[in-house]
């Protein structure tokens, strides 16, 4: 169930260039289940910034009653969030949306997780849950440059992990698709989150395979009421899906990328 809570900051640390790992505690964690779901965060009580910020769940820990979010400082909202100290509270609405379908990867199958930049975080909880179900996880993480890389070791704990950087300063030089080609990585199911061109390239490269992508779109409500976040469905002028409530994860081909 979607809930609303002032969660407490348990910890916050800088883990890469302008990139923060924020851990929150609260009852709401017990409602969080699916990797790929997100929370809608109000960073300040004031009317400015007004809107909530959508941020993906990166790690859900029911036992500790904590969840972790990894975000990059971009504008006003994330800059304010970066100032939060342990003990401060954060207004959280969630969990929202539909996450990555775990059942698409049966036990014993091979899942390829492909993340680009700030699209990497939700794949961490996914890797954790897939591994627990007996799925073999291979991860390919793409970043712009070495300073932006995070969670390489954390992913490696779940299986084979490759890092690519655009400028070649760390791991393989090039894009995630280059790594998949060069290493001829095999998979039964592919899960991806990252910039749209990356998602499009993956969907085009593997048109007849099960590929699941997590989309980003500007949001108003985050719950399906305002029609801010829609995307087209192939073959129709008027059919649509809402990223916030039908997604953010879709099977490639289900929506126009």
């Amino acid at each position: 169930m979607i809930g609303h809570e002032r969660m407490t900051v348990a910890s916050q640390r800088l883990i890469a260039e302008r990139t923060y790992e924020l851990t929150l505690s609260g009852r709401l964690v017990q409602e969080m289940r699916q990797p790929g779901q997100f929370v809608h965060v109000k960073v300040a009580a004031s009317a400015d910034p007004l809107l909530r910020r959508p941020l993906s769940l990166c790690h859900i820990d029911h036992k500790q009653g904590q969840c972790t979010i990894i975000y990059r400082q971009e504008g006003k909202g994330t800059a304010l969030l970066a100032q939060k100290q342990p003990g401060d509270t954060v207004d959280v609405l969630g969990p929202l949306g539909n996450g990555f379908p775990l059942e698409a990867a049966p036990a014993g199958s091979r899942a390829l997780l492909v993340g680009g930049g700030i699209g990497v975080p939700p794949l961490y909880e996914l890797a954790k849950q897939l591994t627990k179900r007996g799925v073999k996880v291979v991860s390919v993480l793409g970043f712009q440059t070495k300073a932006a890389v995070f969670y390489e070791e954390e992913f490696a704990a779940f299986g084979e992990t490759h890092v690519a950087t655009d400028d070649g300063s760390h791991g393989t030089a090039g894009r995630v698709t280059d790594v998949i080609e060069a290493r001829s990585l095999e998979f039964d199911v592919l899960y991806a989150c990252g910039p749209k061109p990356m998602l499009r390239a993956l969907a085009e490269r593997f048109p007849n395979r099960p590929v699941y992508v997590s989309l980003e779109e500007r949001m108003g409500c985050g719950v399906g009421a305002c029609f801010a976040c829609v995307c087209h469905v192939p073959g129709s002028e008027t059919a649509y899906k809402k990223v916030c409530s039908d997604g953010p994860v879709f099977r490639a081909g289900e929506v126009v990328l």
Partner: protein
Amino acid sequence: MNRLAVELPGLSLKNPIMPASGCFGFGREYARFYDLSVLGAIMIKATTKEPRFGNPTPRVAETPGGMLNAIGLQNPGLDKVLEEELPWLEQFDVPIIANIAGSTVEEYVEVAEAISKAPNVHALELNISCPNVKKGGIAFGTVPDVAAELTRLVKEVSAVPVYVKLSPNVTDIVAMAKAIEQAGADGLTMINTLVGMRIDVKTGRPVLANGTGGLSGPAVKPIAIRMIYDVSQAVSIPIIGMGGIQTAEDVLEFFYAGASAVAVGTANFVDPFVCPTIIADLPALLDELGIGHISECIGRSWKTGAHAVHCRA
């Protein structure tokens, strides 16, 4: 005595708080948060004859204390609203105000006639003022004669009272309101969003794919208050006020300006519980200000004896 109950043409409201059109869909999403029967009424998303996809994304852009939207009247179309959305809303004890829109006079009339016959639709809200629809939309809301003619034609076919939603994007809102009143409107709702734009400093291009969008949220409240203050003194039909309402105090400000009920839009996105919270907060605020019934506040800012308002500050 229910000190929040308000009687308006077609509407017996248990309280004067309702979600504004386009900010609450057809209620389904917020029904997961609370029982919609607590609301005074619900203004549903603008309905057009055919389904519409609306504008390309990005469709929203934040601004200081507000937001711009260019949804473009996306909706499932008249048939689906009649067959699915309105019947679903019948489970709640709440009157529906159907917001209708169109690109031609004929479309408005056709949608008005059909939707006004739905059992739970107690009033129509004629959206002549959506700034995000290119074809025609803007002209209906900015030319008094055109708005009056449309009002007359819709009144002729509607089975329920007709409220007309005014655009703030005009030079003389009072002239507009008077023309619409003369054409037979039962009430006014105001304000719709203000046309605005944001430009991305990195790309040098407008943030919204549509270029312009409608500004809403706390940033527009003083404009809404001023316009309601002016219009309520010039017409005798009731006004449902909206524009930036977030709290019970904001509601009273709208009543003092001249509104008889209010709608809450953007604030639902910030806090999904905002409407029930305001409804719960109002009685204590009335007590604090020594007000018996909320209707006593209507137009207090301009009625004689306004200075007699007792405030224990």
